[in-house]
């Protein structure tokens, strides 16, 4: 049950996307997301779909895996689609009407475009970032990109350290949860039946030991870090230096080209109004 979470997970690989500099990936993801919202015509949407498809091929991840990752947002997609389908008003003749529902051609287009946009958004950002970047590299990238904030006396390094520690402990705490749940099940705990309140109460014997365990682990970690003379971020150098390569610049250029193409697509005349 707890092992089925794929959203925000990293899948190891050696694709061009995996090897790209995480800082560049972070910036390009933001760029990509912003650009998606500028798509306004059919051609622009088609171009967007095509580019996302190319991105999937570049990542070397299987389609099956991606579909599994998109599953959790299925209802959001459905909801957006339905709302847009029925509640888009237009001056044109309606396509058909049923009871209080009136469907205009524009509604159909908007619904389809919204779904495609959200799909591209989720796929693009997870492909570029979480699926192909280790949490460590990601925090490194965030730290480096935010480092100008150091000038304002904001301890960026400490925040990045906290973030990577939190990420590091997710699988450990999941494992602890499973262990504690098993132990309480062996003592007759029942997590699967009864009313909502009863089930919530049944979780108490899991949550308290889990909290205690989390505190114990963080205390151990703090001691271990101090034993190794951890003094915070000041003056620390890194073992793995992030360096921009020619391929990263090439990727940036490709993305710029993608953006420019998408903008120009908006100006190709079509019969469909949006």
């Amino acid at each position: 049950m707890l092992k089925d979470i794929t959203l925000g997970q990293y899948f190891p690989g050696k694709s061009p996307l995996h090897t790209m500099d995480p800082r560049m990936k972070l910036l390009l993801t933001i760029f990509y997301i912003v650009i998606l919202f500028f798509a306004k015509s059919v051609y622009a949407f088609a171009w967007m779909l095509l580019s996302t498809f190319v991105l999937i091929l570049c990542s070397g991840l299987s389609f099956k895996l991606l579909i599994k990752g998109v599953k959790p947002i299925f209802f959001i997609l459905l909801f957006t689609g339905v709302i847009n389908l029925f509640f888009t008003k237009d001056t044109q003749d309606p396509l058909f009407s049923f009871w209080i529902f009136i469907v205009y051609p524009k509604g159909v287009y908007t619904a389809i475009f919204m779904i495609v946009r959200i799909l591209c958004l989720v796929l693009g950002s997870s492909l570029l970032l979480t699926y192909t970047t280790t949490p460590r590299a990601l925090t490194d990238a965030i730290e480096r990109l935010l480092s100008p904030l150091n000038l304002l006396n904001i301890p960026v390094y400490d925040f990045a350290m906290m973030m990577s520690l939190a990420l590091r402990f997710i699988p450990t705490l999941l494992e602890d949860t499973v262990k504690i749940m098993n132990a309480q099940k062996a003592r007759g705990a029942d997590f699967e039946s009864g009313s909502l309140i009863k089930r919530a109460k049944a979780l108490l014997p899991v949550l308290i030991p889990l909290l205690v365990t989390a505190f114990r682990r963080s205390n151990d970690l703090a001691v271990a870090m101090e034993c190794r003379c951890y003094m915070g971020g000041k003056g620390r150098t890194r073992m793995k230096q992030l360096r921009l390569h020619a391929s990263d610049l090439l990727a940036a250029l490709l993305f710029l080209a993608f953006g420019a193409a998408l903008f120009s697509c908006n100006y190709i005349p079509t019969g469909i109004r949006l």
Partner: protein
Amino acid sequence: MISITLEHVSYAYSPNTPLEKEALRDVSVTITGGKITGLIGHTGSGKSTFAQMLNGLLRPTSGKIFLGNQDIWAEPKKISQIRYRVGMVFQYPEHQLFEETVYKDIAYGPINMGKQGKELDFLIRSAAEFVGLSEELLDKSPFELSGGQQRRVAIAGVLAMDPEVLVLDEPAAGLDPRGRDEILGNIRTYQQTKSKTVILISHSMEDMARYSDELIVLKDSTLLLKGSLKEVFQQADIIKDAGLRLPQVTRVMLALKKKGLDVDTSVYTVEDAFKRLTDRRRSSC
């Protein structure tokens, strides 16, 4: 004095996925009722999986498990009944304590079983007594206690359910030698006075030699050996092959024999060896 029988039991984690990992392969064995059976094996040999199957926490991918004559998975909805009959103490059980007082924590299991009133109180107090917890500790918070005492509380929490079979996964791990002997000694006393069936998982061959009657040896997810202490320890080569060692004192005896000294090599505890060697000296004088 109920026995547990496994018939061709296999278990795989995440079956039918690329991550499939076989943890037990075609294990058929009977755990004798009213005895302490030691379960040994190298890390990753399937010991914990084996243990978690005995009380229905894991369901075998294939094969059957019988508690007495009853197939424990005959009615999957009533698996909690099996969990009351087969008590399970996990590794580092003190990490699962949660109540305000020791008394309440020990009560958690029996209350889940529906016990109440005088019977509940009796179960809690006798369980606490078996593990050597004194009366005044019962009203303390379990988080105030030392690690060794927390361990006792957690074990008492399972004993209080008065299970017919008790499974303990490394109950003495991380304790000092005295705490080790006390806890294992308590378990031995409990088993003998109540003539329960006990399954003990441990890495320590010395503990096994001292506290168990029969042994099950697992290797690479399969059953390697099963028999009385003597039967198993005589197969020194097979044990070595499984990545395990005979008890230290037995190895000393074997080495002595190799050097030409005529000694009995079927001794497994230091006390036993001492007795045999002194007897031998007396008789030869």
